[in-house]
């Protein structure tokens, strides 16, 4: 398996050679990771979307003057953070003065729900999902988010919610039983 660094070097070279396939590869492989970080920094999903576009626009525009990038994942994440910090301070949504203080935090359940619904492209799925989410208890929604978006282990969730691992497992199992109804019929 080639190491990440080797891939990053190849991508850097390809970008400098004006190969836009390198750009599409980076875009497609990093998009979700960047989006996740963006919403965790407290930006709404529109701002994150727009900022990711701008970051890649800059990357292509300045591809001939790029420094020695060791990791595109880290590079793009830092560029996105800078941009989101700038926008958030412009909108005066945060009080901090330095972007290094902009930390990832646990997403709020309402924001999670909002993005989850917005991401469904079919209107019937959107509606079904809204109904399903209404039927879930706040506890179920919280655990679904912690498990799948925050990617926490059962033990982590137990610490955070003061519930037993076994209880969490049961709550989650129940929630998924309902939520699987948003999948297309087989």
């Amino acid at each position: 398996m080639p190491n990440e660094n080797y891939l990053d070097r190849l991508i850097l070279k390809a970008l400098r050679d004006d190969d836009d396939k390198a750009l599409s590869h980076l875009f497609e492989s990093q998009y979700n990771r960047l989006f996740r970080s963006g919403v965790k920094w407290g930006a709404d999903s529109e701002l994150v979307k727009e900022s990711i576009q701008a970051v890649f626009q800059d990357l292509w525009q300045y591809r001939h003057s790029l420094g020695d990038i060791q990791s595109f994942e880290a590079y793009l994440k830092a560029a996105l953070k800078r941009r989101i910090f700038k926008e958030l301070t412009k909108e005066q949504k945060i009080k901090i003065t330095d972007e290094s203080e902009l930390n990832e935090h646990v997403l709020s359940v309402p924001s999670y729900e909002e993005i989850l619904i917005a991401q469904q492209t079919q209107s019937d799925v959107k509606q079904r999902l809204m109904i399903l989410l209404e039927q879930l208890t706040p506890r179920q929604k919280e655990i679904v988010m912690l498990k799948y978006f925050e990617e926490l282990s059962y033990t982590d969730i137990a610490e955070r919610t003061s519930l037993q691992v076994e209880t969490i497992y049961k709550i989650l199992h129940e929630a998924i039983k309902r939520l699987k109804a948003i999948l297309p019929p087989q």
Partner: protein
Amino acid sequence: MSVTASFRGCFHLSIHKMTFKNTYTIPDLLTNESFLNFYFQRNEDDILDWEDWRDENPDNEQLIKQAFDLLDRLSLKWNETEIKQRFAELKHRLEPEAVLEEVDRPVLVASYWRRWVAAATVLIVVSLGIGLYLDNRVARQWIVENSDASKPAIHTLKDGSKVTLMGKSHLEIAQNFNETSRTVKLVGEAFFEVAHNPDKPFFVITDNIVTKVLGTSFFVKSPIEENGAGGKSDKNSKAIEIEVVTGKVSVFTKDKTSKTSESIENGVILTPNQKVTYWAEKKNFVVGLVAKPVLIEKVNKEPNVEQFRFDETPLSEALTKLEKAYGIQIVLSNDKMNECPITANLGKQPLFGKLDLLCAILKASYEVQGTQILITGRGCE
């Protein structure tokens, strides 16, 4: 192989094989930590185990697919189609460079386009940082120059054509202009409204590129390099770009070493909403679509937006309407999509907005391939 019951336990332990249940449901998988390690690619052993399980039979594979689909949604991942669309948006922003690389050979436009002759409105964007090159075959009569950077200046040519020269631009007019043909050279930016005369075609020369206009009006734009060297010398300074709004134009290179001015090395014919970029270094024409295609009938009359109101219209019929309105060929990857019924009002959006909506309805995606748009999807029930 004979392994006695008493050894089986040790055997399993030694190769670290996990035991699977006979049946799993989606909630079982989504609450299974090992399965989640597989999904999030967190643990090599779990990945290998579940991959083996997946390969055991098609039912397992189908179940994993469903589980991943649900996990993608719950972990707030944008789906592949969505990301590809975003990338397409990015490419439009990166015009002119990014889209060009999709086609890397000259493309000659098929005769399919011939019916859109009529008047030509041509937008030519020339980003060539080369100083005024005097071709001795075209004796210079006079130069129109607009040194005022802030506003355009309008000039009327002998044949009645009008040229609006933008700031810091030069226009050279041939001695024999309007005798047998109409030839001008341009460095900079200008808007041309050419008097219609099929017997005397109108040529715009920019370095070694010739644009032949068969209709009435077009726009030319190029940054000027000051004092021959230095000045604006950005990365794409070697590319010439020509965009066609309506009408028809041919663009070709003129072989400088050749004695005859008719010598055409290679070239392309452009029709509405197409553009070409010529890379001087590679001597290469690349044809693509403009970033924002417009309705080609707009110049002559008010566009009929009602024609894009569809009510249970078969997709093929709806696409034919779009093809005619924008003069762009739209190809379906799958014949099963032809009959998909479309109910939507696409009157107000630009072309790519219309396609976004269509693709959302069809659960399909589209991409620009050269001068065509390809729609990929499964069809409908």
